[in-house]
């Protein structure tokens, strides 16, 4: 069982929004999707689910194209946060719509989860607080019983308790290896421990597919201070600069080897200290070109 995205492209008004996107996604996997604002994350989701017609490429579920075999789309869930029809409906009314598409919609579990989170079944969707709405969106995703679940910014603007509830529900759901999640988020810390892999979208394309645990095995983040103010060649060659303040350099070295270690120590740094590497560092290392080496002369 797998979902394959193959060379997916979408242009809107002659402007290429996403281009040549390919990745595989299996049940039991949590994939994070990160990228700057406006880079096309939501467009990717809408194209994946055929709300937008792709110019090129296809989505295959168990080897079958979702455009040629529309029933396969039942295995894929995405609730558009910006454009959905739920506003005026009460919570108890909403499942009726989802049952039309998701034949295996779990009505009982939907009701149980509403009770568990003290959500009033008679509330109108639009009157819910942000946190309640986030919970309802996730509850619908889980009770749809779709195998592949897309969550667009599920942690955005939520307090710590709701965030933890949502993460816990995702963890719980994925533990049986029956369902997979694709989660976009600006909260990189939230994705960090949660994701198996993180896809980085940049200039309309997927530029990285990070397996964070593997990266942590070989990568190092270092804080360095050198006596003179030039950047050593070994750093220019092997590292990405995260931050400079005065003499203090913070760099990420993706493949830290004993050779690099020796070369750095041979330069007699005033300070050489290892710092914990986060997803945010990788994000900065790849996207923040404006903090390049030219900052220091």
């Amino acid at each position, binding site marked *: 069982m797998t979902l394959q995205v193959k060379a997916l492209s979408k242009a809107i008004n002659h402007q290429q929004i996403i281009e040549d996107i390919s990745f595989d996604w299996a049940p*039991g*996997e*949590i994939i994070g999707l990160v990228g700057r604002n406006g880079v096309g994350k939501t467009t990717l989701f809408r194209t994946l689910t055929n709300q937008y017609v792709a110019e090129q490429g296809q989505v295959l579920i168990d080897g079958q194209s979702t455009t040629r075999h529309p029933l396969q789309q039942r295995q894929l869930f995405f609730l558009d946060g910006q454009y959905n029809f739920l506003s005026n409906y009460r919570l108890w009314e909403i499942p009726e719509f989802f049952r039309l598409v998701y034949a295996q919609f779990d009505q009982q579990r939907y009701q149980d989860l509403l009770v568990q989170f003290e959500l009033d079944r008679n509330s109108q969707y639009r009157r819910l607080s942000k946190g309640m709405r986030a919970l309802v969106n996730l509850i619908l995703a889980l009770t749809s019983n779709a195998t592949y679940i897309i969550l667009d910014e599920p942690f955005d603007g939520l307090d710590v308790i709701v965030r*933890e509830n949502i*993460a*816990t529900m995702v*963890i*719980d759901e*994925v*533990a049986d290896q029956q369902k997979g999640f694709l989660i976009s988020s600006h909260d990189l810390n939230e994705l960090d*421990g*949660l*994701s*198996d892999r993180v896809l980085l979208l940049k200039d309309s394309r997927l530029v990285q597919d990070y397996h*964070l*645990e*593997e990266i*942590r*095995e070989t990568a*190092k*983040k270092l804080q360095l201070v050198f006596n003179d103010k030039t950047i050593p060649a070994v750093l220019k060659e092997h590292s990405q600069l995260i931050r400079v303040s005065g003499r203090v350099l913070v760099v990420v070295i993706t493949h830290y080897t004993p050779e690099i270690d020796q070369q750095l*120590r041979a330069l007699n740094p005033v300070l050489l200290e*290892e*710092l*914990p*590497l986060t997803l945010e560092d990788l994000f900065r290392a790849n996207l923040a070109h404006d903090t390049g080496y030219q900052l220091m002369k």
Partner: protein
Amino acid sequence: MQVNDQSGLPYYEQLILHVKQQIVQGILQPGDRLPSVRDMARQEQLNPNTVSKAYKQLEAQQVITTVHGKGTYVRETAVVAGDSAQVVATKKQLFTLLTELRYLGVPLDEVVKWIKEAYQGVEQ
């Protein structure tokens, strides 16, 4: 969260160390049951695959054992021979660290004191 101890190690390695630490401190004892992969993942807010990887390695290192359908338990601490592959590899790592400490000018007494502290379970 206990895992994410700022060490920069992969989370599964942090979890392995965390379990071993609890064993040497006596918080976990032989025969004690560990949370299931799912419960540990929930508790630590970690990906279940990460927890599963840690459990598999702990099992391979004979620290824990899984009884099918019952759960995962802490094993009796085996007395490992001083020349086992695991001890040899760990010793090598220790020597690398000791070289660095010497280079940094940390005196022997100080290092010996740390080692004693670690063995007596004194928090840093």
